[in-house]
């Protein structure tokens, strides 16, 4: 619509009380500056509140992701596992650490059959999908013995009790000790032929350094088959 100048003037005469009071109150340079600073601070606050709201979503998501492994571990402890117990599985090309809850679950699982035509050493480098298909939690040898990598308390050797708990037999005997990338690896054998290796060191070292080649090296040094 086209309006006349007089209409514009009439419209100005009806300006809101708020605008008129504001103009009357802020009647000096100092008052105006003060109000300007206050308004600017308020606008900044509103803007940052808006940004904070938008930022909250990714920050919360990142926090949840970061806390997830901790929660899983805690759940594992609640399930009856000791702190530091880990189940190291072979993935191609990296070893990854499974949740502690799996350790307890697999301890009492019947050993699955080795995929046809695979030897123990081949088994260690199975493709992830093959491992998944065979539902293996440990490295399975042809004679049914298995290798499990377990972290002990820092500086401590695994006790017979510990070995028994994992192998299921109390007469486990030490085979040898060696150092692999700064990790102390203990191997033991039981009368039933269960074979296990204990690694004393930091969990993350284990995760970081034991890649496919390391694992092959480790396996190469181990006696194969039931004694």
């Amino acid at each position, binding site marked *: 619509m086209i309006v006349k100048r007089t*209409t514009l003037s009439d419209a100005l005469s009806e300006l809101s009380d708020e605008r008129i009071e504001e103009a009357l109150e802020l009647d000096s340079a100092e008052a105006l500056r003060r109000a300007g600073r206050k308004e600017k601070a308020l606008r900044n606050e509103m803007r940052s509140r808006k940004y904070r709201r938008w930022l909250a979503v990714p920050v919360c998501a990142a926090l949840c992701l970061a806390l997830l492994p901790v929660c899983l571990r805690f759940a594992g402890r609640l399930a009856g596992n000791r702190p530091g117990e880990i189940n190291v599985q072979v993935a191609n090309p990296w070893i990854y650490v499974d949740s502690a809850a799996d350790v307890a679950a697999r301890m009492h699982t019947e050993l699955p059959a080795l995929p046809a035509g695979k030897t123990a050493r081949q088994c260690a480098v199975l493709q992830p999908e093959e491992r998944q298909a065979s539902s293996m939690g440990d490295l399975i040898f042809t004679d049914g013995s298995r290798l499990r990598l377990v972290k002990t308390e820092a500086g401590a050797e695994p006790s017979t009790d510990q070995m028994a708990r994992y192998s299921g037999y109390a007469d486990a005997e030490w085979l040898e000790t060696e150092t692999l990338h700064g990790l102390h690896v203990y191997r033991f054998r039981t009368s039933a032929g269960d074979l296990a290796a204990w690694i004393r060191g930091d969990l993350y070292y284990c995760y970081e350094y034991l890649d496919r080649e390391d694992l092959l090296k480790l396996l190469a040094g181990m006696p194969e088959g039931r004694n």
Partner: protein
Amino acid sequence: MNETETDKRRETGCPSSAPDEAQMVDEVYRRSEAGLHRMMDCYGALLQSLSMSILHDAGEAEECVNDTWLKVWELIPPYRPAHLRSFLCKLTRQISVDRYRAAHREKRGGADADLWVELNESMMAPERSPEDAETAAAVREAIEGFLLGQDVESRVLFTRRYFFCESLQSLAERYGTDPKLLAVKMARMRGKLKKYLEKEDIYL
């Protein structure tokens, strides 16, 4: 009361506090002339200065302020203004603008116009059609919307310049700035307002 405080009071009226204003309105509502006199004491100078800014004539301005008090006496009751000071300013502004328009129309009308004015006093206060009032309300709403998007400094300068009709020189002195800079600022603001109004489908 020192000189600065007196000046301030003259410019902005009595210290604006809600209870005082409400009390004055109550008194006038009860038809107390004392209440009206208190209003005159408090806001007379402010309204005189507002009217002077529009008419540039002390005598005319005084008449406008007197008309304002008469209008207040007529309107209250039944009307009860929430903000007395701005209510008075609006009344005075409208009365002064009407008087200004009438005076200019008179000039344009030449000598005969005096006769018409004499014949019909109501011409001094031009009637507004309902359509005009409706349009003015729409424009007012648009201007309010525009001002809400501006910072406090721009809002205050705009209101002081275009509602109170304060001169650029006076504004510059009040806010400690250069009149030329202020003129540029006001021109920019007018440009922005024009664009804003056009976006709202209002053309001048």
